[in-house]
C-alpha cells in the first residue's frame, strides 16, 4: 500500500438556494487515494459529482457550504482552513482543479506565458521572466505542447489545445492531486483523446501524484483511471478497480449504469441495454432509507426504511446496499426476481 495522498472522511456539504432551501448534494462521502493512483467518479447528471469536486478542493463559497467531515491532503487538513486560505495556499500548490469549461477561462487579451507568470506571482515564487519562460517551455515540450503556444493568445488556439494548455498551466507547480471535472466532455473525440493522453503523461512523468477524474462517460473512465467510484444522489454507492466495476458491478445501480455502456466494438449490437426506470430523488429532502430503493428492481420494504452503510466485501471493494453480495450476484446470474425473504447481512 502506497502513501495516502488524499483522504476524505464522511464529508457532508450542501447548497443553499435563492429561496433558502438546503440541497444536500454531498452526503457522507469517504475516499482515499494513494500516491501514483487515479480515481474515477461516475454518475448521472445531478448526482452531486461536480459538487464533490468543489468540496474536495475546499472551495466553500456561497452557495456551497461545508457541513462536516474531514479532507486531508498529504497530512494537511484543509477542511479546517478558511476558504480564502485554502484558495491562496492549497489551490495550485497542492491541488489543481479543472472544470469542464476551463478553456473559456483564458483571458483572450493575454498571451499564454503571461498566465504562467501570473501563477508564479500569485504563489509568491520569485523567478525572472526568462526563468519562467524556460521552465514553461520545458514543461510544455514534455507534455507534447508546441512551444509557440506560449507566445499565442487563447483565441488563436483550438478548443482541444486550449483545454490542454489550461491543464498544463494549472499543473505547472506540480500539485499533489489533480481534480478534473469532465475535462473533455465539450471536445470532439480526437481532442478528447489528446487531453486524456496528456493527463496520463502528467501521472507517468510524476508532475502530479494522483488524480481524480469525474465524468459520466464510463468507457472513458475505464481507460483513464485505476479505480472507479459510482455516485448516486449525493452518495458513493460502490468502489472497485476499473476492471471490476465495468465487468463485475455489485450494486444494482452500478449494474444498471454499466449495462448502458455503448462502444463501437463488435458484439455490442447483440447486448441488451439496461434501463433504470424513474428519476433520482430530490436532494432537498432525500429519502430516509436507501436512496436507490425507489428505482431498484430488487428493493424490498426494508430498503425504503433503512439506510445502508458502505461495507467492504473484498480487498479495496466497497458497496452500499442492504443485500449481500452473494445474493446480488445470484440474482444477476439467474436474471430472476429475488424472493421477498431476501437475506440481509
Amino acid at each position, binding site marked *: 500500500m502506497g502513501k495516502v495522498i488524499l483522504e476524505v472522511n464522511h464529508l457532508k456539504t450542501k447548497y443553499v438556494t435563492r429561496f433558502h432551501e438546503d440541497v444536500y448534494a454531498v452526503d457522507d462521502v469517504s475516499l482515499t487515494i494513494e500516491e501514483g493512483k487515479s480515481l474515477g467518479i461516475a454518475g448521472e447528471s445531478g448526482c452531486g459529482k461536480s459538487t464533490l469536486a468543489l468540496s474536495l478542493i475546499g472551495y466553500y463559497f456561497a452557495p456551497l457550504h461545508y457541513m462536516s467531515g474531514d479532507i486531508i491532503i498529504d497530512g494537511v487538513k484543509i477542511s479546517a482552513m478558511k476558504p480564502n486560505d485554502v484558495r491562496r495556499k492549497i489551490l495550485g500548490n497542492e491541488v489543481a482543479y479543472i472544470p469542464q469549461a476551463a478553456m473559456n477561462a483564458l483571458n483572450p487579451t493575454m498571451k499564454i506565458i503571461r498566465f504562467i507568470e501570473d501563477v508564479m506571482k500569485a504563489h509568491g515564487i520569485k523567478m525572472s521572466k526568462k526563468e519562467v519562460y524556460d521552465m514553461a517551455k520545458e514543461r510544455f515540450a514534455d507534455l507534447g505542447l508546441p512551444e509557440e503556444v506560449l507566445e499565442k493568445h487563447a483565441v488563436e488556439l483550438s478548443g*482541444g489545445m486550449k483545454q490542454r494548455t489550461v491543464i498544463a498551466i494549472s499543473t505547472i507547480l506540480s500539485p499533489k492531486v489533480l481534480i478534473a471535472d469532465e475535462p473533455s466532455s465539450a471536445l*470532439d473525440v480526437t481532442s478528447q483523446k489528446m487531453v486524456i493522453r496528456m493527463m496520463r503523461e502528467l501521472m507517468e512523468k510524476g508532475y502530479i501524484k494522483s488524480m481524480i477524474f469525474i465524468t459520466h462517460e464510463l*468507457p*472513458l473512465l475505464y481507460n483513464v483511471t485505476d479505480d472507479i467510484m459510482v455516485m448516486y444522489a449525493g452518495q458513493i454507492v460502490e468502489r472497485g478497480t476499473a476492471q471490476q466495476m465495468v465487468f463485475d458491478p455489485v450494486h444494482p445501480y452500478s449494474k444498471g449504469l454499466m449495462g448502458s455502456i455503448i*462502444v463501437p466494438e463488435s458484439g455490442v*449490437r447483440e447486448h441488451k*441495454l439496461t434501463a433504470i426506470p424513474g428519476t433520482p430523488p430530490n436532494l432537498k429532502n432525500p429519502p430516509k432509507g436507501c436512496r436507490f430503493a425507489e428505482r431498484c428492481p430488487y428493493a424490498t420494504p426494508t430498503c425504503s426504511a433503512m439506510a445502508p452503510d458502505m461495507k467492504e466485501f473484498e480487498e479495496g471493494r466497497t458497496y452500499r446496499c442492504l443485500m449481500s453480495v452473494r445474493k446480488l450476484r445470484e440474482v444477476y446470474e439467474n436474471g430472476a426476481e429475488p424472493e421477498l425473504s431476501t437475506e440481509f447481512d
Partner: protein
Amino acid sequence: MEQNRNSVQNSTDRKPCLTGRGVTKVFGVGNKSMTAVDHVDFDFNEGEFVSIVGESGSGKTTLSKMLLGLISVTEGEIEFQGRKRDISTGAKRKEYWKNIQPIFQDPFSSYNIFYKIDAVLDDCLNMRGYRKAPKEEKDRMKEEACRFVNLKYSELTNKYPFELSGGQMQRLMIARIFLLKPKILMADEPTSMIDACSRATILDMLLKLRDEVNMTVIFITHDIGLAYYISDKVYIMEHGKFVESGPAETVILNPTADYTKRLISDVPKIYEKWDLDTVARDK
C-alpha cells in the same frame, strides 16, 4: 430487441422513401459564404433505421433541417417516395409535414413552457383530422400514445412541461410521433441530453416505432458507438460531405475512409485495448 435485428438483414428490397442527389446548403453570399452541406447523395428506404454520424460543425443538423423543410435547399434534389419533393407553398409544406416529423436534442426547449403538455398532443390530433372527434375518442388516443411510451396520461394531463423530467419530456415527444405516425422520423441527437439509464428506454421506443409503423428513422448523432448499436445503415459526415456509408456492421467494423477510422480509433473502448499513441499530437 432480437426481432428488430432480423428485419435489418433483408433491407435491400425496401422501397425508397427519401432520396437526395447533390444536396447542398450554402449560408451567406460572396466571400462570406459558408458551405454547410456539400453535394451529398443519400437513399433512405422505408422502414430503415439510418444514422448520420458527424462531429459538431459537420453539417448534420443543417442537413436535417433541409430534410425537414425548415430551411431551403441551395442546390440539388430531394425525392420523397419516388417523386420530387415540392414544398413551395404553405399548403404543400403542411402536407409534407404530415410525412416527416422531428424529435429534437433538447427536450427542455422542445416545449412551449406557457402551455400545458396536453396542447402538444391535441395539436397532433388536429393535424390528423380529429379536430371534431368526440372528447372520449381523443382521450382514448392520447392515452394509447402515452401507454406506448410507458407514461400514464392521467398523471400527465393538466401538467406544465417543467413538471416533467428530461426523460419524460423526450418520451412524450415520442408519443407525439406515435400519434402522428409520419413516414419519416428525424431524430436529432434525441438521447444526448438524457441520462445513460433512460437512454435505453428512448432507443427501444424508437425501434418499436420503426417496427410497428414501418417508419423510416433518420438518427442524427455524434456518438459512433450509438450509431453502430442502433442503426441498419450509417452515413459518416465530415465537413458537409458523406465520407462513407453502408450497413452499420460493415462501416464500423471495417471502415475504409480515413476519417471513419480515426473517429473509431479515438472513441474509448472497453473490450479491446484503446491505443492512446495513435493520436495526432498537434491539432
